[in-house]
């Protein structure tokens, strides 16, 4: 079974209305391709995301926002910062690098 199965995902951008939505669409595409069903898939603003990050297994954001989740990362949340939020291959690679893919 995939390590991504039944995980809770959160996608964040500054406003929670633009790039996070696009990133969520990219994530859905990747998960569908991998045949993974997430337990939760939430998109929101950085301000909401910062306090909510601990409730999620995996946080995705643009690379420049990744360090805002350092606290959650220390406590075990996996944070994936991407350069191109619309790139499914980059997202898959980031998951692989984080040891999330078999």
């Amino acid at each position: 079974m995939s390590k991504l199965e039944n995980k809770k995902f959160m996608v964040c951008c500054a406003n929670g209305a633009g790039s996070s939505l696009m990133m969520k669409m990219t994530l859905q595409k990747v998960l569908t391709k991998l045949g993974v069903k997430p337990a939760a898939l939430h998109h929101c603003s950085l301000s909401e995301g910062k306090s909510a990050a601990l409730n999620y297994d995996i946080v995705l954001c643009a690379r420049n926002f990744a360090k805002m989740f350092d606290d959650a990362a220390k406590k075990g949340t996996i944070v994936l910062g991407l350069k191109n939020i619309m790139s499914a291959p980059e997202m898959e690679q980031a998951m692989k690098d984080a040891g999330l893919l078999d």
Partner: protein
Amino acid sequence: MADTILQKIVERGHYKFVDKVDSWQDAVRLSTESLVKTGYVSENYYKQIVDCITKYGPYVVFDHYVAMPHSQEGAEGANKTGVGFMRVKEDVDFGKDEDGEQKIARLFFTLAAKDPDEHLDNMNQLMNIFCNEDLLDALMAANTPEDILQAEKDFPPEDILA
């Protein structure tokens, strides 16, 4: 079939073609102009976008000269849901991002979001456009609303999520 986002942009007069701008702040302001004229956003809406980019950096500038200035969903000053298009002939410099990469834009797709469903559909369509470099090149060469429609005919966006 429902109108595509580019057709809506043309029908609603949400487009602008300029040769150059004074600054990225000026570009953001100009990119909201057609939305202001039609009552989609308030005159001051652009200031929220400028503040946000100033605070968080040029994360709204993507690959291939594309910028997507936006504020929050249901933000103050966003009265309707739509997208304002602007093509600038000369590079608009947004400065460097945290990786030291220079962020440059010539195509602006400025978002006004009021209705979540329509906004989601717009974002889906924009993503397909942003991933279609031939279409982006044609839009960068556009000078009229007819050129926008022709570009879409010549290089129809594919549903990349399908």
